[in-house]
């Protein structure tokens, strides 16, 4: 029976020459299919992490597991890894001599076989025309719980190995040849907390994949397989050409930068904290090598290691295309295999960015964001008008509790902020770099869980000063209304986002417990495992604020006044950082000129 290596593409079929017009027409049709898949998944699903936060992905792949298109709703960190998931599935199936059958639905989440991390379950459906395997329809989605050691699927920061992170699925057939494999579904139901939600979400993924397969078959019947494949190849070449042109425009050379992650700040072991992320970019003509040598060794028994395929590669690819092929500045370049052809990634085995099984990886998101930000830092001197100064990282928290014998589990993604940009301040309180989820409405959270969001605002006076200042982070307070548990994974409590070109660094974030009994606030580290919380306890998360860009003394005085009027910057901050003296809501021009002259 067919495997990718038996497919038409692998057999080296000669594809017809394709004209630009047909290529464009097929591209539009492919994007439409992916959009429809995502739309169905979001609307059918149960958990807020999918339907509100859009932490899912949908794409079509050809028979060689190359991405053809992607769904524009959803998040890059779910979309980007999809080809890697599918290749991991193929590898896993080849190892055991399994094969694809029409009607198969395959579940996969193994981080050492291409998956991004365990909670992001991939569901793949092989697409056949007759006996010919022509491609795959694929979705990924973050699930609330996978039966790990503590409730929820984030903040499992005390997992000592991959087994402690929850159920591992390596190419498991939920349906085999069209027949539902009930035993697998029972295993899911028996081992997962909040199983109704999780299983409902998996069902939605299955439905979306089947829809994508159906639509792809219709497309192939309309245009012919060879025309669709040739159009796809032409699209990949287009994306590749765009990426190569952008790389070629960068002067050849070696560009390096370093940054740090908190790791486990409360841990006595120095091997678990203050870890280095090192990025060296070599540009040679229209190709680029990104080398992570110099990054700290893996942490054997804490899950902040990052799978090279599924996290590190995606952090780098997404950031690179956001800088080089910025879709606000140019046409949208289709996301497909062509984009990554000119790029090679090097990461020594056994470092944080290329861990060895069974090192745990479930909390790989925040370190990944620093990999992304450090790439931007390396490129900043040669692409000063395309990058932002240092970016504030996120935090992800799991809240849970028991009602009778049943768990409720809620997952909350907070936001970071961007650094200043050439000609623009940083974006305030947004998801950053290789992720782009949405927050969950307060009115949704409070309606469904014994939680209350008691504050959700911008933080004042903390953004990195600069000619274009950093973005403001948020402050978010969530109160437990009944006894429960909470766990959290975040980054940026110690290392502030970097400033650029004379801009000052931003500020670190914080995590604080405001106890129900009115006791003194307790500062918590940026990662903690499942802790018990009492009814009335408030967990406060404060985002890091982005770094500044350019000399703050050169910031337009009117913008400083406007920031003060809006409460983004204090009167004292205006004087200290910007050399702008504000009295009674107006700029004291003379005092400002004097102060700025003295500072320079």
């Amino acid at each position: 029976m067919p495997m990718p290596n038996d497919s038409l593409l692998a057999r080296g079929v000669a594809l017809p020459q394709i004209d630009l017009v047909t290529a464009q027409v097929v591209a539009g049709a492919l994007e439409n299919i992916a959009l429809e898949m995502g739309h169905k998944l979001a609307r059918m699903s149960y958990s807020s992490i999918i339907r509100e936060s859009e932490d899912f992905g949908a794409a079509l792949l050809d028979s060689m597991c190359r991405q053809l298109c992607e769904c524009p709703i959803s998040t890059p960190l779910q979309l980007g890894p999809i080809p890697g998931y599918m290749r991991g599935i193929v590898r896993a199936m080849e190892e055991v001599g399994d094969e694809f059958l029409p009607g198969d639905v395959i579940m996969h989440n193994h981080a050492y076989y291409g998956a991004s991390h365990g909670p992001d379950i991939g569901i793949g459906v092989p697409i056949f025309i007759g006996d010919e395997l022509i491609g795959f329809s694929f979705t990924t989605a973050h699930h609330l719980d996978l039966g790990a050691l503590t409730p929820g699927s984030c903040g499992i920061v005390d997992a000592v190995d991959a087994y402690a992170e929850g159920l591992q699925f390596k190419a498991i057939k939920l349906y085999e040849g069209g027949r539902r494999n009930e035993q697998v579904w029972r295993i899911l139901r028996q081992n997962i907390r909040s199983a109704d939600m999780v299983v409902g979400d998996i069902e939605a993924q299955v439905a979306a994949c089947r829809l994508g397969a159906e639509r792809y078959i219709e497309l192939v019947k309309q245009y012919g397989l060879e025309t669709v494949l040739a159009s796809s190849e032409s699209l990949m070449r287009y994306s590749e050409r765009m990426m190569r042109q952008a790389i070629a425009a960068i002067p050849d050379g070696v560009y390096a930068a370093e940054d740090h992650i908190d790791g486990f700040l409360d841990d006595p072991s120095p091997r678990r904290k203050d870890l280095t992320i090192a990025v060296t970019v070599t540009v040679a003509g229209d190709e680029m090598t990104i080398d992570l040598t110099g990054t700290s060794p893996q942490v054997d028994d804490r899950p902040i290691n990052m799978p090279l395929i599924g996290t590190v590669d995606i952090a780098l690819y997404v950031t690179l295309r956001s800088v080089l092929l910025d879709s606000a500045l140019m046409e949208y370049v289709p996301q497909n295999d062509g984009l990554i052809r000119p790029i090679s990634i090097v990461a020594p085995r056994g470092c944080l960015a290329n861990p060895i099984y069974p090192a745990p990886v479930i909390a790989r998101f925040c370190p990944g964001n620093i990999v992304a930000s450090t790439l931007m830092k390396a490129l900043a001197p040669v692409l000063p008008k395309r990058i932002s100064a240092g970016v504030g990282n996120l935090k992800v928290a799991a809240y849970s509790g028991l009602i009778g014998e049943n768990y409720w589990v809620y997952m909350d993604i907070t936001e970071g902020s961007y650094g200043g940009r050439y000609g623009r301040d940083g974006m305030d309180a947004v998801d950053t770099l290789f992720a782009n989820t949405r927050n969950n409405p307060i009115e949704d959270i409070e309606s469904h869980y014994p939680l209350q969001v008691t504050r959700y605002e911008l933080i004042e006076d903390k953004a990195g000063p600069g000619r274009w200042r950093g973005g403001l982070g948020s402050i978010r307070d969530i109160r437990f209304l009944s006894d429960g548990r909470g766990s959290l994974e975040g980054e940026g409590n110690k290392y502030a986002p970097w400033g650029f070109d004379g801009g000052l660094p931003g500020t670190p974030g914080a995590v604080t417990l405001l106890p129900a009994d009115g006791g003194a606030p307790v500062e918590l580290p940026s990662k903690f495992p499942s802790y018990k919380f009492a009814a009335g306890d408030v967990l406060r998360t404060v985002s890091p604020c982005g770094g500044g860009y350019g000399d703050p003394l050169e910031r337009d005085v009117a913008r400083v006044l406007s920031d003060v009027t809006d409460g983004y910057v204090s009167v004292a901050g205006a004087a200290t950082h910007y050399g702008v003296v504000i009295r009674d809501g107006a700029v004291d021009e003379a005092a400002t000129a004097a102060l700025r002259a003295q500072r320079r």
Partner: protein
Amino acid sequence: MRLIGVDIGGTFTDLILADTGDGTVWTHKVPTTTADPSIGMVQGVVELCQQAGITPGDVDQLLHGTTIATNALLEHRGAEVGLITNKGYRDILHIGRHQRPLHYSIMQEIPWQDRPLVRRRHRLVVDGRIGPRGEELVPLDEAGVRAAVHELKAAGVASIAVCLLFSYINDAHEERVRAIIAEEYPEAFVTTSASIFPQFREFERFTTAAINAFVGPKVQVYVQNLVDRLHAAGLRAEPHLMRSNGGVATAEMSAARPVTLLLSGPAAGVLGGSLAGTLAGRERLITFDVGGTSADIGIVTARGFAEASARDTWIAGFPVMVPTIDIHTIGAGGGSVAYVDAGGAFRVGPRSAGSTPGPACYDKGGAEPTVTDANMVLGRLDPEFFLGGEMRLVPEHARRVVDELAARLAMPAPEAADAILTILNHNMANAIRSRTVQKGHDPRDFALVAFGGAGPLHAVDVARTLGIPEVIVPPFPGITSALGLLTTDLKYDRIRNQFMLNIAPDLARLNRDLAAIEADVRGQLLADGLAETQISVLRMADCRYVGQGYELRVTLPAGDIDDGAIAGVWRQFHDIHAAEYGHAFESNPIELVNLRVVGVGALPKLRATSAPAGGSIAAATLKVGSSFFRHDGALREMPTTFYRRELLPVGAEVAGPAIIFQKDSTTILPPGSIAQVDASGSLLVRV
């Protein structure tokens, strides 16, 4: 009855007067007076009445589609707005859903941060909090509210949005703030979030309210001027304004809720297309309204036009949560620019040359090839007859810019022109496919109603791409929106959260609540001056499986809902879920989330247009020219007959290749298509 419809566009104001008795219509077009569009409009009304030999006082009804609110939002020229919100939540409007509009961009703009509807200095917080079950958790700090109102008044803020959490369940605090503003600052324009649309998701609801506050004062002034000018001109009928929901409202209601006017024009277009299809005896329609920069697509079935689901509507980058006809807009029109990008991809739109400089053949300085230029090069537009000869086209300019593109593509100019149309037509077809297939409709079961200046140019090719068998071109394609205005009713939407489970139904409460909402909406229609006999009420419910976040709409039967009736409602939900998503979770509990009541006040309307006078095919034949068409896979120059539409008699058949000119549009019949003039005045094209 004599009805006037006025649709104000960016360049022209289209007017139509219809006598519902014999279906006679008169049309008129005047330049839009941008500074105050009511000036041009009233002048047009007076002239149109003269043309029809009546006085403005003889007009029974005036219906109006306006872009005043839309433009204020698109151009970000609205009022300085103040916000009063709960303490602790000052920045909901600024943080939004914390999602960046673009996945792959560092330099992007975030509309709600870069162009705030309410600047932070005017976002004030007060103590007070309602909880998720409508319970009061913290009482409203009335002194704090008064202080906030004074502060906003002192700052010169003219419009205040009141946006409090959970007001969609309990609006007591919002209404109390409104009352305090009325005491302290009675001249302020006040918007409360629950009064606009009481639905969960605070960012979207607050933003909708803030948009209302932002455009409100401008719309209020406009509506007042309009009413005054119309009265001064002798019009006795009160004007009604078209809203995004496909109904009209009184001037007063429209001015209070201007956010409901944002899709006024496109909604009228869907109605106009629907009228043309209905008069031709067709029930399932895709309306296809194509102008210079964009194409608006709507779907009409036996159940009427489709309504967009909440959260699907974005205007100027902001979410808008009010009932809206499901209209999908894409950047594809006559002015769409064709170019080859840096990576060698051939693109058409969404960038448009607009009306200035416009396509190169307009001779107003346009230097890039557009869709109109491509049509020109292919011999499908005639320099003499474009827009009835009102605008002279210069074919040499079109040829020059298309030649340049063709050289880059290394193909002959006609091939390049044809490629431009192919890409544009497929972009449009894709948009239509996504709107139909995603909703479970097969486009092949529909007719495509093509209008707007450019719709009939592309409709047959688009229909062929989708397997749509028939294209309908209304009698006046360019003023179909104005015509649509003459088919509308007063329509008010009411929505109320219910949160009732099918496993624990409370029918007494359900019936009580339905009765109360019905009474409220009937009261409004009676207050508008309608008689009981003109009023009808539709009742619906939004349902979902417990735990889902998106609802599907089911209809509720009339009268008291008993056990049998509610069982039918749950059955209907499973069926709709299966139809929409291909799967029903029959054993899962269902939650009835919202009750919806639509009050419809029937207005006199145009039900038929008089048959075109026509002439004969011979009289209608202008000439036999030559145009390029793709036929049997190759692009060829073919003898093509050009017709004058108004002289084609009812029943006449015209076979492609042919081109039919009229004052406000051009219809293209490629080889193999056949058009027949229907008694309703529309062209019915078998593609």
